């Protein structure tokens, strides 16, 4: 009987110390879990992390290459699948190949689509490239009169004034100007690199990784496993004490 009481006392002491040790962890899990549950409403899935130490921790590097096109006073840049106007991210685009300006519109060409933008970076239209018989876009240029022309599988395609219809053009006798990628001012280059790294990591992703322990790698998961087992122990020991208390009350 005395042995049984002594064992119960040890478990009770253990219950208290484990409870005190894991209290902070439980509070943290509750708060981070609530934040994750409402991450859509709070906009955490749309907000991006920009702290350099976190980006370094996740191994997020800058873009492999940035290609820039000078269009009057504006700079259109391609980095990965992002399109930037004057260093500000404006849209995603499939493998950027070039850009021109025509009729007060900026036209960015990806291998499978064309994006029409105004000078504030607002998307006018995203045009899926696909005239019958055309392959992927290889380059975009201009003919005299600001007529937009696209090269695809060695063939030329000429757009109408609204870029609604494309006609196969005979390449003889015409010499389009094909804008080439040029160096961009350093400030714009830095702004693009900073955003490119940050765009890869949402606040929701970080919260999920912190909540699961993944952010600390396999050690983090191991520690979280131990803490989870401790919480399980608390639940079971708490239940045992509660049942025992009820039994003792009924015996009185």
């Amino acid at each position, binding site marked *: 009987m005395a042995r049984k009481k002594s064992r119960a006392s040890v478990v009770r002491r253990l219950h208290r110390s484990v409870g005190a040790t894991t209290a902070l962890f439980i509070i943290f899990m509750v708060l981070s879990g609530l934040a994750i549950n409402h991450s859509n409403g709070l906009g955490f*899935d749309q907000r991006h992390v920009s702290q350099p130490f976190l980006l370094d921790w*996740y*191994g997020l590097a800058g873009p492999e290459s940035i290609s820039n096109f000078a269009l009057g006073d504006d700079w259109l840049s391609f980095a990965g699948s992002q399109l930037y106007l004057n260093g500000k991210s404006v849209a995603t685009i499939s493998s950027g190949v070039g850009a021109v300006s025509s009729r007060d519109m900026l036209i960015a060409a990806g291998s499978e689509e064309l994006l029409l933008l*105004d000078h504030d970076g607002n998307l*006018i239209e995203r045009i899926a490239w696909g005239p019958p018989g055309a392959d992927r876009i290889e380059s975009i240029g201009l003919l005299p009169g600001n007529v937009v022309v696209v090269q695809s599988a060695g063939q030329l395609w000429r757009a109408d004034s609204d870029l609604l*219809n494309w006609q196969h053009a005979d390449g003889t006798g015409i010499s389009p100007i094909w804008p080439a990628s040029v160096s961009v001012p350093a400030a714009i280059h830095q702004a693009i690199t900073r955003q490119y790294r940050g765009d890869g990591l949402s606040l929701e992703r970080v919260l*999920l990784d912190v909540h699961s322990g*993944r952010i600390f790698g396999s050690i983090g998961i191991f520690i979280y496993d131990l803490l989870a087992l401790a919480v399980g122990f608390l639940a079971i020991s708490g239940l045992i004490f509660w049942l025992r208390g009820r039994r003792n009350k009924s015996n009185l």
Partner: protein
Amino acid sequence: MMLAVALFLPALAPAASVYETQTEFLSRAFSGSPPGPGITWLSGERKVTVRELLGHDYPALRLRYWCRAGRSAWVLNEIGKELPITVGVVIERDYINSLRVLTYRENRGGEVATPAFTDQFSRVALEDGGALDANIDGISGATLSVKALTRLARVALFLHTDSGCKDGA
């Protein structure tokens, strides 16, 4: 190790599901000979109404559509949770003739692309208040995608009337 796995998860996500290309959609909408495209600019009152129907601005300033003899076809995009869903809507007179998901990019909720779901939009019209005149049954686990398609149906019905195509323009 687990961090690396977590970071690679997006790369392992399934690629976009293309159910029908725009060319196939237009060919089906106009029995194999679609008309040339027209343009409608989202500005002024039209922009305000589209914003009210969508709950936000449409992510483009102009839309192309195809219209012949009171029938119009629209290819519209709307984000379900994170990625845009491309939807083709054919409107005839006052009601939706057909609504089909052309490309679905989200990881979950692809059930909205099944005809069993999209057929609910057939012969649905727009009420004066901007709501659909029929109830669209939801799909468990695809709530955001269902809402996105419903919003696009409302926008397409409004644009059909607004463009004048309804009157045979």
